[in-house]
């Protein structure tokens, strides 16, 4: 099942990239279409970000991931590279769990 998901997702991703090279430009460049295409990643990433921080299955929870997200926010505000933000999130979450402050 995971293989099917991986492969179908990969084919879809390639189809979108390839579409831009073969279909006439006017189909994708109406102002509304352009705005939709640029807002979709913003919306999905924001949604994924909070859901993956505050949920466990279909329950809303607060655990060590919140501290990790805080550390990532500080890192990015200080213009740290992506990897530093991710590492600081993992390290701070691991630390508060080790100390037993949050599950």
């Amino acid at each position, binding site marked *: 099942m995971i293989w099917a998901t*991986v492969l*179908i997702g990969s084919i879809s991703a390639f189809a979108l990239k390839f579409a831009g090279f073969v279909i006439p*430009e006017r189909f994708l460049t109406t102002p509304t279409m352009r705005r939709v295409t640029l807002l979709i990643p*913003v919306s999905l990433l924001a949604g*994924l970000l909070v*859901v993956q921080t505050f*949920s466990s299955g279909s329950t809303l929870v607060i655990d060590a991931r919140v501290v990790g997200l805080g550390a990532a926010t500080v890192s990015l505000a200080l213009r740290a590279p992506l990897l530093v933000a*991710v590492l600081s999130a993992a390290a701070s979450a691991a630390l508060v769990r080790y100390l037993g402050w949050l599950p």
Partner: protein
Amino acid sequence: MTALTPERRRRIIIDAIGIGAATGAYAISFGAISVAAGLSVLQTQALSSLMFTGASQFAMVGVLGAGGGAVTAIAIATLLGSRNALYALHMSTVLRPRGWRRLAAAQLTIDESTGMAIGHQDDPPSSRLAFWSTGVAVFVLWNLGTLVGALGADVLGDPARFGLDAAIPAAFLALLWPRLVSRLARTVAVLSAAVALILTPLLPSGTPVLVAGAIAVTIGVFLTRGAQETDEFGQRAVGS
């Protein structure tokens, strides 16, 4: 008009390798997160070489790891990749590739390669070199980084002990951050986050994000009819 001098050629290639190295380092976290989410090393590697678009890859493993269904995971990953079609439109006018080069160009059309090409758009040969060199450098180092992370996580074991579950939202935040360039983008982000959280106890895993996306993007488009918008590269209208 700036020509593609040997000096400029060298600088573009060095920049490309620099960007490749940075994303390759980031790919280490993707590889680790993917294996922690339950994918095998080979499945993880397939995503990095076949899907090859970071945000979609993180989304797919994030949704699968949180117990979301295959259809939801594919839908979110595909929607996140839709911006690549817009990038490809722009790149097709710059590269005008034919035959196998068109397939290669399509696969290498991602944020970094398109961004670098647009950065050199004053000179078409430089722009083409920037696209190809960045695309190839990121592809090679992204896959290498993925392998290192995937094998590393396989050895480490329990992901929560090392805070790998906290690395997933941090990765989404890092991908979102440079896109929050306009007030519209920030409004849509906050709205999406709020709706997704409210729907989480009510809908199956993964779907709240899709529903929130549909609502927020519709409202965002409605709010800004006729307004000028800048994209994440600070350019007005890629491809025109």
